[in-house]
């Protein structure tokens, strides 16, 4: 486009605007309209983004709640499974040995130390045993174990829990085609109705009401952060074991 000399660079462009480009002012106003459209679109986009963000947030929260519920149900079954797995060994085991610290055939190492769970969470088997015995994960003195509480009301007869079986849930079901997540453990303890005063021996005499009765706790850690615990009361009748009570322990 050929412009007159007055319109070329070096001149006062503001003063020459209408001369050089008739309609420039209108074009600028049209440009201002573009700005309004941009603003409108921005407002619409922001509002839409806010709506969508709220919906996504709702969905994410709902998905997590649903996953947590599903994991809780899976953990419950896993806790029940590991408790019943312990019965397989207890059916033939020397109960006094189990109450003295002998472990089941379902283990993944020594009955102490730390296990690494999914999400790099650490599980201390010693802390779990202490927590079960006296509610204190850092360890229990004899006095603490014998202290009566709502969860452990029997005082001197409170169960002295011994870790019995433990390992990854997947190891409990090695043939399962689906990889099972989580870790499971079981503990055994003498029945609190025992009258022999010895928590590491099953009642030996016929007049002991706790003779041939044992408590078994099964606990599952995971999937995810789910934790569930079940407790069985089992009785030895002849050569077979009979479950006489099943309960879920809730925190």
């Amino acid at each position: 486009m050929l412009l007159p000399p007055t319109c070329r660079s070096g001149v006062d462009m503001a003063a020459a605007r209408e001369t050089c480009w008739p309609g420039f002012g209108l074009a600028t106003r049209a440009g201002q309209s573009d700005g309004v459209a941009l603003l409108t679109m921005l407002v619409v986009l922001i509002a839409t983004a806010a709506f969508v963000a709220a919906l996504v947030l709702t969905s994410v929260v709902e998905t997590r709640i649903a996953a947590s519920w599903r994991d809780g149900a899976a953990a419950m079954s896993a806790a029940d499974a590991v408790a019943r797995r312990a019965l397989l060994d207890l059916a033939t085991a020397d109960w006094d040995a189990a109450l003295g610290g002998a472990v089941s055939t379902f283990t993944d190492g020594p009955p102490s130390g730390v296990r690494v769970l999914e999400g790099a969470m650490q599980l201390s088997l010693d802390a779990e045993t202490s927590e079960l015995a006296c509610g204190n994960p850092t360890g229990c003195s004899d006095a603490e174990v014998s202290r009566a509480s709502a969860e452990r009301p029997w005082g001197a007869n409170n169960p002295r829990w011994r870790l019995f079986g433990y390992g990854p849930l997947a190891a409990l079901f090695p043939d399962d085609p689906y990889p099972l997540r989580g870790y499971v453990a079981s503990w055994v303890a003498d029945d609190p109705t025992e009258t022999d005063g010895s928590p590491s021996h099953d009642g030996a005499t016929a007049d002991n009401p706790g003779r041939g009765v044992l408590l078994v706790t099964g606990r599952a850690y995971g999937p995810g952060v789910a934790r569930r615990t079940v407790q069985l009361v089992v009785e030895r009748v002849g050569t077979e074991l009979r479950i006489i009570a099943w309960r879920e322990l809730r925190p």
Partner: protein
Amino acid sequence: MSRRRLHRLASSAGTTLIEALVAAAIFTVLVASVLGLVERLQGTLQAEPERADLQQRTRVAVEQIQSALNEAGAGPLVGATRGSLGRYVASVLPYRIGRLRNDPESGVRYRPDVLSVLSVPLTGAQAVLRDGAAVDATFLTLEWPASCPPPSSATVCGFGPGTSAVVFDRRGRWDLVTVESAAGSTVTIDAPGLRFAYSPGAVVSEVRVDVLSLRVDAQGISQLSRYDGFVAEFPIVEHVESVSFEYFGEPLPPQRLGVPLDNTWGPWTTYGPSPPLAVVDDPDDTWPAGENCVFQIAAGEHVPRLATLSTGRVLVTLDPATLRDGPWCPDAGNPHAYDADLLRVRRVRATLRLQVASSALRGAASAFFLRGGSSTTAERLVPDQEIVFDVAPANLSFGR
């Protein structure tokens, strides 16, 4: 923009008016469509949290029912009847039990939307009767087991004011009582006292009672509520429009086990109360000598009184008629009797239907909405949620 076009813009005033009109029309269409979009988004935004809330309320309701049923029939550690409570008394009942508005007292023996569950928690408050107790007794003389929790100023062996307890025996009698005080070997219970007479050796234990049912509050909101069998009843989940329970049970009648009936320690039967010796007549019921609600005498032997519902071991549906036609435990003349077929229950199916709280998110009454609402747009429709699930109480299934 070309110079020619700029010139036209600057000079054509009439065109500007048309363009303004066109622009206004386009703008109107744009705004209308944007507003329409916003309106739909708003509807979705309003419905989604309600949908999530509906899901969560469903989970809570399911969890409550599962929790109660999972523990159903858990029994005490002490006494000759230790083990499953469900072996001796019906622990899952299709009507309301408890100290307040007890259904059997008004002749009701079945409600499809009520579930009562009995269980004994793992507790130290467990003992046996040292002396027998008569009907209406309010004093119980107990024999404390060696495993009793240490006594405190108000409690003996874990029993203290307000303890909710069950008294039951191997004959299938049971009572719910509230302890008023405990001292020495005596426990005082609240009036009206015991409904049945008990012999020495009957178990007295802390108990958990869950009565789950539908109720409507003062605002007309339908709620799933839990009654603890004694004094407290509270809503668990709101806007539960319907709940129903179906029962599946043992097809085979109870059988005697090899344990002699005069043996102190049971169990004496595969399930159900143990009968008296063939020559002994229980003075507390109207059955002939040697018989009870689940066993009768034929040719001098105990044989099942209950029918064989199927020859296999697969659980069978226990229809409502079966659960209220007797035989009755302890006997038909007792106002607190329960149907002996309730002892068969091994699995319970619950059906729940919940709806969204706001009627603005419900459409016209239809298969999707039990109670109609005012919504007419798809974005603002949150259909009722119905869930069906089964629970097989572990404590009622031992030996299967």
